[in-house]
């Protein structure tokens, strides 16, 4: 298998798409991968299809190749972006779907934005752009991988110990969509819940909604000793 084909497999570029050019810039530690649609259905050896004169050029940051940055370049006709490909992204967004999901997974585990930027070598501005678009329902994570396993064993909301329910517990979604309301004694929780409910109102991507569940659950875990009043209500609501 040729090196380009190996890279193509590694970046999950397949089907009617293929790499037509790869360059590496050592000082910038950066790969630039140009992808085009194949003219036929012949796999690796098909000729690339012209995107036409009216095409739009897109560049997205993809998951790293080792410790090197990787950018995917694609020219596509307006409205013809491949929405189901991990290596592609949304117009005007900085990251591919695969990198967006990687970031979302880190956010779910409570990794702060600065740490994510350091881990993935991405800019805070781009990360803010992704976060803002996800939270305002303007972007989606698209086809997501299976949810990451929870680091803690599941604790059902209905448990008598009044502990913090696991993120898989439906009580969180109900709290965030307003199906259940609880009396809250902490200003921070009142403000956070209001913000998250407002975001949930416009988010229809299940994976992004799950991010919000992780956020509210993390608040409860941080403040568990002081939230007995609120946790007891969640336990009752879960029964």
């Amino acid at each position, binding site marked *: 298998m040729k090196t380009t084909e190996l890279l193509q497999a590694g970046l999950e570029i397949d089907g009617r798409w293929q790499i037509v050019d790869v360059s590496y810039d050592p000082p910038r530690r950066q790969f630039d991968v140009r992808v085009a649609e194949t003219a036929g259905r012949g796999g690796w050896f098909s000729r690339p299809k012209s995107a036409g004169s009216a095409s739009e050029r897109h560049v997205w940051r993809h998951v790293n190749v080792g410790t090197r940055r990787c950018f995917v370049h694609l020219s596509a006709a307006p409205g013809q972006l491949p929405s189901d490909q991990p290596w592609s992204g949304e117009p005007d967004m900085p990251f591919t779907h695969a990198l967006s999901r990687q970031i979302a997974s880190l956010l779910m585990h409570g990794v702060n934005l600065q740490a994510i930027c350091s881990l993935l070598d991405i800019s805070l501005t781009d990360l803010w752009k992704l976060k803002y678009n996800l939270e305002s329902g303007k972007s989606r994570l698209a086809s997501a991988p299976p949810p990451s396993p929870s680091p803690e064993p599941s604790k059902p909301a209905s448990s008598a110990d009044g502990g913090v329910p696991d993120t898989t517990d439906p009580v969180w979604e109900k709290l965030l969509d307003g199906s259940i309301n609880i009396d*809250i004694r902490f200003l921070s929780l009142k403000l956070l819940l209001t913000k998250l409910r407002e975001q949930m109102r416009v988010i229809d991507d299940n994976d992004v909604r799950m991010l919000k569940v992780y956020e509210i659950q993390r608040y409860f875990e941080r403040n568990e000793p002081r939230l007995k009043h609120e946790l007891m209500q969640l336990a009752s609501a879960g029964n």
Partner: protein
Amino acid sequence: MAIKEGLMTIGEAAELIRSGKYLSIAGDEQALKQLPTGNWIGGTIPYFMADQGGVVTREQVYVNEIGTFSESPLIRFYSLETLPKLCRNAPENGYSLIIVPGFSDVHSSFARNAPNYDEMYMKPLIGWVAGIHLDDLGKVTPKVVHGQTGQFSDQMAVVMDVPLPMEKYAHIDIVNLFTQGQGDDITFADTGFSAGECLINGKPANFSEYLSSKAIDTRLPLVADYSGAMVNVSIKGNASAEKRVDFYAPVFPGTTYRIAAPVGDYITTFQGALPQMNTELAFSCNCILNYLYCELDGKRTGKVKGPITFGEIGYQLLNQTLVYLTIDG
């Protein structure tokens, strides 16, 4: 030893600073400039709620001693660019006390964006907006002070991060005498310190015309219900010729506001609204608009004291609200 708090002379404040204590100090700019460098943060304002009641003074300063434990607090400036890191940099257990210079870009940015800062609401954040004597409007700018360097700034916020031992926690709450009135539901399309077009009960309208046609008392703020917390947006003015209303804090899209229900006697209502607490207040501040509209000059609000400010911060920017901090546990 008891934590010191109150209105005091420059000499008394300087003595506390020289003793090495961590302090939050509010005062007129000329008064703050007489203080030595040390472990303090400051903001300009000459209005206070003191033992003797509401008072205006350019000669004295209001000092809050910050209780410290094994780990020392950290003082730093935040610029427009670094402000979003505010909560992320805060101690894992503890709180942050922030002072923002009024009318500055950093004030505007905080008001608009704070709810979306990384780690916002996860770590306690309290503070206030520095101001000036109302006679000085247009002549001087509100400022904050990094006491360790003695640097004044009208463009950066100053923050003291105060770590607490694991068995203690900072609790921030508000006392807001205003509640949503029985009137119309008001929503806005955009975040902003001013607005014209809006929806009144879902129908397109102009907010300036609405206020005029209903002869609404603009000393009453807009009030939104944040899961039980009443959050005000105070009205700065109705520019009816431009069909625009200006606010002291931004309105946010997706939030439903109503004009506040009128408050009777402020002092009586305030005393009734104060929660019963077993612990002393570690810090509190109240709003200049409450001071003016409720004529608090010379009047006492019980044991609740502190600077009278151009905006209060209980996580996010608040208006016409008392904000307080207790250290529990």
